């Protein structure tokens, strides 16, 4: 076999590319990984790392469920910084509370355990919530991880299985039967694009929009917050099409730090922090948890979610191309669904039937 010939060239080493490279190497494939920047340095580094089943779309829930089962294999891995804090969805008023029954039924149908929480229970679970909340829904087995470190672990594990990392190199263009790197090195083999927001540079035919988000991390305040908290209206912000929106979404890091989100903006291409957006996001958080106002923030940063028109990722063969595959466009659920996406993609690549129906994620849906 020629040098520069691979069974799979994975372009991009975010959490999705790293998962695909790891899964491919575990299958015994000869894998190349091409990453111009740091491992997990794109959307992966701006992700909260919340492993969460979102139930408002059946295909999204199926992929999340499939992936969450695989994440259980990382529960004892120090590099994952896996913390099973559970997810507590908070209902401010009766209107939000009315959605709980529907959501519980959908999660139950997907095999996810969830409990309705009354107001008294809510304050026992999270005493620092603002008074007057209606109740909520607890999903006790959900967890958080530290995504960039997991990505690095997965790349390193692939390397122990003979994957070759082309670090600091980018793909200049797709060729017939492979890729050309920016230093003129040709690589040959089936190619998987896991480049997130950079996908249109190589595959302009698949629509993808960056959706900016802000994150704030505080100093350590152990015990102040116990669960990943989200407002029950979160899905309206996450899956609505508004140009900009914010939602209450806070996370206790294992160190005692508190990670505060979330914001969503289409049309913002600047990586610089927007003070107006941060203020809007924090005011939202303070209205749910006033104690946050007195904490010290250490860092604020932004990232871009790769967003497809229908909110589902592209997983599968690229129509009209031979041996070009894609795993990108996971928007805000790339960490949750990375492992399942990788397994599904490897099954397709190797001609096996995936464990879940791959049709909803097929890139061909965009040309239909």
């Amino acid at each position, binding site marked *: 076999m020629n040098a520069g010939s691979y069974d799979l060239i994975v372009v991009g080493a975010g959490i999705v590319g790293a998962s695909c490279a790891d899964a491919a190497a575990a299958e015994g494939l000869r894998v190349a990984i091409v990453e111009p920047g740091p491992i997990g340095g794109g959307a992966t580094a701006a992700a909260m790392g919340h492993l969460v089943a979102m139930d408002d779309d059946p295909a999204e829930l199926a992929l999340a469920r499939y992936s969450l089962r695989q994440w259980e294999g990382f529960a004892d891995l120090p590099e994952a910084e896996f913390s099973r804090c559970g997810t507590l969805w908070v209902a401010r008023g009766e209107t939000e509370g009315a959605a709980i029954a529907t959501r519980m039924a959908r999660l139950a149908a997907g095999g996810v355990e969830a409990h309705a929480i009354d107001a008294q229970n809510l304050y026992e679970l999270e005493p620092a919530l603002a008074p007057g909340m209606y109740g909520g829904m607890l999903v006790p087995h959900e967890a958080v991880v530290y995504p960039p470190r997991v990505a690095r672990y997965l790349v390193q594990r692939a390397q122990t299985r003979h994957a070759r990392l082309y670090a600091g190199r980018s793909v200049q263009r797709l060729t017939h039967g492979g890729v050309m790197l920016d230093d003129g090195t040709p690589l040959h083999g089936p190619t998987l694009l896991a480049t997130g927001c950079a996908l249109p540079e190589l595959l302009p035919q698949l629509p993808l929009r960056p959706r900016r988000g802000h994150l704030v991390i505080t*100093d*350590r*305040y152990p015990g102040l917050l116990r669960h990943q908290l989200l407002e029950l209206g979160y899905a309206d912000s996450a899956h609505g099409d508004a140009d900009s929106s914010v939602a209450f979404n806070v996370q206790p890091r294992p*160190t005692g730090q508190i990670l505060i989100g979330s914001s969503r903006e289409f049309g913002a291409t600047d990586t610089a922090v927007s003070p107006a957006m941060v203020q809007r996001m924090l005011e939202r958080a303070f209205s749910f948890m006033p104690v946050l106002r*007195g904490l*010290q923030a250490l860092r604020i940063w932004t990232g871009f979610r790769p967003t497809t028109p229908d909110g589902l990722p592209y997983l599968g063969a690229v129509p009209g191309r031979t041996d070009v595959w894609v795993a990108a466009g996971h928007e805000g659920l790339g960490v949750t669904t990375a492992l399942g996406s990788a397994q599904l993609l490897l099954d397709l690549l190797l001609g096996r039937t995936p464990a879940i129906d791959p049709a909803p994620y097929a890139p061909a849906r965009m040309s239909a």
Partner: protein
Amino acid sequence: MSTPIRVTVNGQPVEVPAGSSVAAAVARVAAHSRRSVRGEPRAPLCGMGVCFECRVQVDGVAHVRSCMTPVSEGMQVRTDD
């Protein structure tokens, strides 16, 4: 000589001259101000508010830089947070 200021550090009474920093009061009775995320002891390094190694809890407020904070009468300081 002005009247000394009385504070407590981890419940222990300490007297320091008016105008002293909380870090000076802490140094009288405690070997360190805080612990790192891995539990290692930390003490003031820069003395000018930059390194954040001198953080202590003052009257219930966490992460106060003791080198930048003057003592006041009756202040309650806790280290190791």
